[in-house]
């Protein structure tokens, strides 16, 4: 088992409020790691420190280290734009661009200078297939992405992230705005994707974490209470607070 991401003594502040306290953890390559915890526990904030998306929120500050492949992403040498090409992200609500399905997928590649139409066509086909959307949309890939259903839009957003060939993909509650069937499809997709990517998912659903993740981290009040293999967390947690949360005593 290979460590992909190592977090060392991470603190995060909104203004003077400390939102994350002294986080240390390791995230393994080609595994799904789930972050669970009650609302406001800092799990989404922590997720966004991994691709530096918190920088779009004014008046925030990070202390500590996040190492991806042993390189600190907060070092001055790292360009956040470059980082985000390696660390993709899928958001809570599907946010396809108001462009065609095709344009959504090739947006990142075109921006990076890929112009060869055959290459782009190929990427569109393979990514649509890998998110199991190809059959549903093959006749309308030059139609607006906004015509798709919510679940299809979310899979398109995943395809858009995959097209960049990142190492890591972050999912911020990707199914919270979707119906159960769409949710199931996305979960199946995540299990497929972990063969090629390191996946981190924030979820408010403990069942979801139990169904798909290899590792689960439990957060409370900005602290990492514990992280372990998912079945251990759900069957035999070490910390009393984790047990209280997963048995539904609060949260």
């Amino acid at each position, binding site marked *: 088992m290979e460590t992909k991401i190592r977090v060392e003594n991470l603190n995060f502040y909104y203004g003077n409020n400390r939102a994350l306290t002294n986080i240390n953890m390791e995230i393994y390559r080609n595994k799904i790691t789930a972050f669970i915890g009650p609302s406001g526990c800092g799990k989404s904030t922590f997720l966004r420190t991994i691709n530096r*998306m918190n920088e779009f929120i004014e008046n925030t500050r990070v202390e500590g280290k996040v190492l991806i492949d042993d390189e600190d992403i907060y070092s001055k040498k790292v360009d956040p734009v470059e980082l985000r090409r390696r660390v*993709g992200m899928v958001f809570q609500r599907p*946010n396809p661009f108001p462009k065609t399905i095709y344009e959504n997928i090739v*947006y*990142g590649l075109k921006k990076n200078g890929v112009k060869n139409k055959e290459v782009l066509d190929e990427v569109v086909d393979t990514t649509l297939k890998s998110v199991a959307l190809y059959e549903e949309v093959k006749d309308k890939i030059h139609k607006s992405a*906004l015509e798709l259903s919510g679940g299809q839009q979310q899979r398109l*957003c995943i395809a*858009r992230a995959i097209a*960049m060939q990142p190492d890591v993909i972050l999912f911020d509650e990707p199914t919270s705005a979707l119906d159960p069937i769409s949710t199931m499809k996305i979960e199946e997709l995540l299990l497929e994707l972990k063969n090629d990517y390191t996946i981190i998912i924030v979820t408010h659903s403990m069942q979801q974490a139990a169904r798909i993740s290899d590792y689960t981290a439990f957060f409370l009040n900005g602290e990492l209470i514990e992280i372990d293999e998912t079945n251990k967390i759900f069957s035999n947690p070490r910390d009393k607070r984790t047990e209280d949360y997963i048995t539904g005593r609060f949260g």
Partner: protein
Amino acid sequence: MNKILFESKSKMQKNERVINKTLTILGMVSIFTTIGIILSLTEETIQFFRSVSIIEFFTSRKWTPMFEPANYGVLPLVMGTFLIVIFSSIISIPIGLGSAIYLSEYAPKKVRKILKPVLEILAGIPSIVYGYFALTSITPLIRSIFPSASVFNALSAGIAVGIMTIPMVSSLSEDAMMAVPDSLRLGAYALGSTKFEVSTKIVVPAAFSGIAASFILSISRAIGETMIVAMAAGSTPKLTLNPLESIQTMTGYIVQISLGDVPAGSIGYKTIFAVGTLLFAITLILNIISRNIVKKYRRAY
């Protein structure tokens, strides 16, 4: 108890009806005004075309209704207006769009709070002030660069009209860009976009309908602008593409004739109605185009 309730209800319904009627009448006022304008224009225009053939009006290359021999070719006036539109657009579209992108995507909140009202004040300056500005500042500058330029020239007036319409472009475009949801920006950032890429590849295309509408409105405004061109562009109807020459626009001509001592009812007097009708038709067509663009490209995000 029930009776009181019923009575008050019927009274409310009566009030409702009165309000409804009043508002309908108020709405009608603007419709009837438009119809009135069209009628007053068409009557004299029809009379004009009884004396002058419509073919001459659109094909003759000379406009000399006040001289002998009189020529009634409107093209020189249309060309004058066209020159003003071209030069004002060269100024207002890039500067307006650039400042809209800056205000919406780059400017810190505090800067925007100050800059946006300042830009909008620019829109409130009377156009005669821009006319002075053109004559006293822009023209001398042009003549120092191009000594051949006339005292009155299309370039100077076009630049002044362009400056005047910058706020229209920037303010409407910025509104359209601000309406683009942040989730799209964040989505693009998460794919490794720079701020410039987010602005030009995501926000501007998503706001395209509003931006295009602002361009067309500013062009409409340039076509209709009167005071600046009357002051700075000259009064020589001329079929030329040289912006350094004195020209005359459609609006400039109408002002000249209506202020002069042309007897009412004469053919010279009727020319201004024919030109006015053409002006009205052009701006109407532009407005229809702009509505269609807004409709066609409107995206429900």
